[in-house]
């Protein structure tokens, strides 16, 4: 296993307005490759209520266990709505790599090694996000909810600064509050695209409408 030090970005969003372009697959492949070959400690945060990345990384059974244990992003957003002071790291499922080399049983406790963790999603995330938006809605400021979520997500990621080398946000299609918050705090964005006219149009819309006009990050 390589032990090259990771000097790359801290937060990466995999995002596109269009669905079915391979965002979750890209997330999984990048996470696996960096944790195995570069000894990077990767945390995937699944922002998509479809929970595809969560199912791929945890398996259906593992996701069920996370769900019934209250260890999901949905539970974290619920805790924000309830005003609880729960720590973000209590929603992290760690040691979840399907690669034999990275399974907890096979890892040495000495020295630096890569690892893979996830804050999984569930279909109920859409309702939790709606509740969060409702709570933080302001008639005077349409971006209020996004700003509050950005602040929470930034604090959450910063609290893991020394435990995780790279955070990958697997964003849902469209432009949800969580997606906007993730894009706001990301150092880089990967936008998978299908090689077809509608794919190019959607990438342009993501850049112009999403990143430039809405978030002003371009």
């Amino acid at each position, binding site marked *: 296993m390589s032990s090259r030090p990771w000097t790359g970005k801290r937060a990466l969003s995999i995002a596109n307005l269009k669905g079915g372009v391979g965002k979750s697959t890209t997330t999984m492949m990048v996470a696996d490759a960096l944790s195995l070959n570069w000894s990077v*400690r990767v945390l995937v945060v699944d922002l998509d209520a479809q929970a595809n990345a969560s199912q791929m990384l945890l398996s259906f*059974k593992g996701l*069920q*266990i996370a*769900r*019934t*244990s*209250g*260890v999901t992003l949905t*539970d974290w957003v619920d*805790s924000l709505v309830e005003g*609880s002071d*729960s*720590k973000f*790291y*209590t929603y*992290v499922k*760690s*040691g979840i790599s399907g690669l034999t080399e990275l399974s*907890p*049983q096979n*890892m040495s*406790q*000495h*020295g*630096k*090694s890569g690892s893979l*963790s996830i804050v999984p999603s569930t279909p109920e995330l859409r309702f939790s996000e709606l509740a969060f938006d409702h709570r933080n809605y302001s008639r005077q400021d349409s971006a209020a909810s996004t700003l509050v979520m950005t602040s929470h997500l930034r604090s959450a990621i910063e*609290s*893991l*600064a*020394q*435990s995780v080398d790279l955070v990958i946000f697997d964003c849902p299609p469209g432009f949800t509050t969580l997606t906007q918050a993730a894009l706001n705090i990301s150092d880089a964005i990967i936008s998978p695209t299908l090689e077809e006219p509608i794919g190019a149009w959607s990438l342009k819309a993501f850049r112009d409408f999403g990143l430039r006009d809405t978030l002003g990050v371009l």
Partner: protein
Amino acid sequence: MPIEQVTIERELYDHVHRFLSMDFNGVLARHTGAHPPQVFSDVVSKAGGEADGSWTRPDLAALAIVRGEFVPFLRADLHTFEVKTAKGLDVQGAHEASAQGRFGHYAWLVFQAVSRADRTTALFDQVLRSSVRLGVGVVTFKEPCDSNGWHVDAWPRRTATDDAVADEFVASRFRRETKNKIRKYLSGLKTGDNTDE
């Protein structure tokens, strides 16, 4: 960069809690060679219990639940943790952790191994020897933020604590949110949501 020595014990709790949340299941899995257990942890130093007496108050606790997939069993082990700064460490810490172990199945002493408590010092050896003799596990770290640097120096022996005592400890010391997570997980086991079928 020089390692910062933390001098206030309470400032270490958040780091230990993060270690328990993110890494402890992997640590247990490495030790047993079995699947990682489901771990629920909390800072319990101020919650419930007797009004005074530090020897009755572990700083943190973790409930590790593991279920057999083919050989049917369900085991819940309560781990208690006494945290010490390098400055506050002495042999008494091992006795304190051991005394707190009466509430759970495994007792641990956790401390920052720098300065006078560095692993090259006589104090480190004394504390480690006492801990091993008392059946107390020892976890050390140098830089609390660096999860790669946390190290199990000694494994605890399982105590004969009654499960009902451990259950009462969880009921009276863990936060409501954490207990709700445990309840949800256990009810998932009953309904079969957490099984292969």
